[in-house]
């Protein structure tokens, strides 16, 4: 996109910035930005900060007059040198990113920053941030994730897996370290409940530790491998002959576990880490 101009953010841009986030971040796993959070971002607590938006001015485009880029930059002086932090960056394409980054660099130079840091989308090619342009990639920080409540995770992740759950008429029992969770389909929705011991009737039980469950959900391991290493145990609890033909039942359960994995396409902005 070549027909754009960059200007300072104004309060009335909020709705359009929100739409930009919704359309641009939709394919990534990310911390959701509602309007309150976007407004909070614009108040980034640096004595020196700037918030820019890129506006499309292509007359024939559907995006004409729309916000196609958003950037928050602030100067942090907590170290011995001043760091320019591009706390948030969202844009529709590489050209818009380039224009916004140029603006941020100029701002950082003008405000006396010694270094500038930015995060990009996980699958984005180097492009704007190439070595040739003086950027280099570093991974000094990382995000650590784990399951806090298996029942909450199963409730959300299994909601869209009705078809896979439906084939187990009496449901599935997930036996984790300190939780036994019964999953069953009923009236077109998936019911997930904590049960005491093995009291609930189910077709099958899946046993694993909280750590293995956490690693599967976070995509650090795959359930097939865990099953082969006997870190996941699958037991038949009823004799439903149609269900337990050959390996199909165990395969179905492992496939269901694999589908629970949260994609690794995490988009994390610097502002998410603050």
């Amino acid at each position, binding site marked *: 996109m070549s027909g754009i101009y960059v200007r300072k953010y104004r309060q009335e841009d909020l709705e359009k910035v929100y739409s930009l986030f919704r359309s641009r971040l939709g394919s990534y796993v990310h911390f959701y930005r509602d309007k309150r959070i976007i407004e909070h971002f614009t108040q980034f*607590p640096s004595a020196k900060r700037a918030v820019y938006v890129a506006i499309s001015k292509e007359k024939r485009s559907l995006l004409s007059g729309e916000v196609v880029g958003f950037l928050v930059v602030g100067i942090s002086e907590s170290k*011995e*040198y001043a760091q320019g932090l591009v706390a948030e960056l969202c844009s529709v394409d590489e050209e818009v990113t380039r224009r916004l980054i140029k603006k941020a660099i100029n701002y950082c130079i003008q405000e006396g920053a010694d*270094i500038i840091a930015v995060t990009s989308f996980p699958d984005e090619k180097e492009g704007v941030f190439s070595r040739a342009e003086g950027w280099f990639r570093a991974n*000094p920080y990382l995000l*650590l*994730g784990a399951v806090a409540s298996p029942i*909450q995770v199963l*409730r959300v992740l299994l909601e869209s897996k009705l078809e896979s759950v439906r084939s187990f008429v009496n449901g599935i029992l997930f036996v984790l370290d300190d939780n036994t969770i019964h999953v069953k389909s009923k009236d077109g929705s998936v019911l997930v409940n904590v049960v005491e011991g093995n009291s609930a009737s189910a077709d099958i039980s899946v046993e694993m530790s909280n750590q293995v469950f956490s690693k599967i959900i976070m995509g650090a391991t795959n359930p097939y491998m865990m099953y082969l290493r006997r870190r996941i145990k699958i037991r038949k609890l009823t004799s439903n002959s149609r269900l337990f033909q050959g390996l199909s039942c165990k395969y179905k359960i492992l496939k269901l576990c694999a589908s629970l994995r949260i994609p690794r396409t995490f988009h994390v902005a610097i502002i998410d880490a603050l």
Partner: protein
Amino acid sequence: MNTRELEKILIRSYSGDKEQRIVEFLNLCYGAWGDLKEWKWRNVLYPTFESDNIVMAETGGKIVGYGALFFRDLYIPHVGLLHTATLGDAAVHPKFRGRGLYSRITYETRMPIAKSKGAGLLFLHTQKGSVTHKANKKRGFVEVHYPVYIKVINAKVVLEAELKEFVERDGFLRKILGENFDLDVNGANITISLKGEKEKPADRTVVRIVIDEKALPFLVKLKASGKAGVMTYLAALLISRAVKLKLIHTATLITQAVREVPRFVRYLCT
């Protein structure tokens, strides 16, 4: 400190007071954490803030531990929103470290709060290789990497600060280099004094480190590398002559290095 004193420590939720004291405490623990404005923006002004998102450990009216928590939704494509919690800043007073107070604040207080408020997942931002990173990885936390790009505007200032911090942290290097060393970045000469002296007698410098700009990307990566990585990068930089060491007082340096050989061997083995 005895067990009775540790038992006296009370962990309670934030109650709207002591904001300035919390910031002073964080600055004491982190060195340079920030100011009240920043603390408020990160915590009380965050849209999902509730008072029990912040816990404080206190004894005798003094803050000795702190931990923050944030609640936000994680968007997962084709699934929707999953309620999550993020463990924010945590700090323990230097005198109370190594006594399990961090565990009490995090695993016995913050995590149960997160669970009770319906968080499905728990996140934590940390520096690679830090104590927090190692401790939480052992507890089953999984790493999620995200690309950070850096552009250095003022190489001289950045290198001076980073190198000083790097050498200060590494007792072995500090012993060998002495309290003062010279740094030369692209022809600009700076003297680093680990004692914080502005001026130093020239004859005390034993090493001059000459750094070429092409070494910058590697030097930044050093911060996030393990011991083996640091050795490899440093060797590569020295071989490619992107970093040169000029020995000024060779005899002093050799004496200091020889004295440190046993420690160096132990450093490599641990």
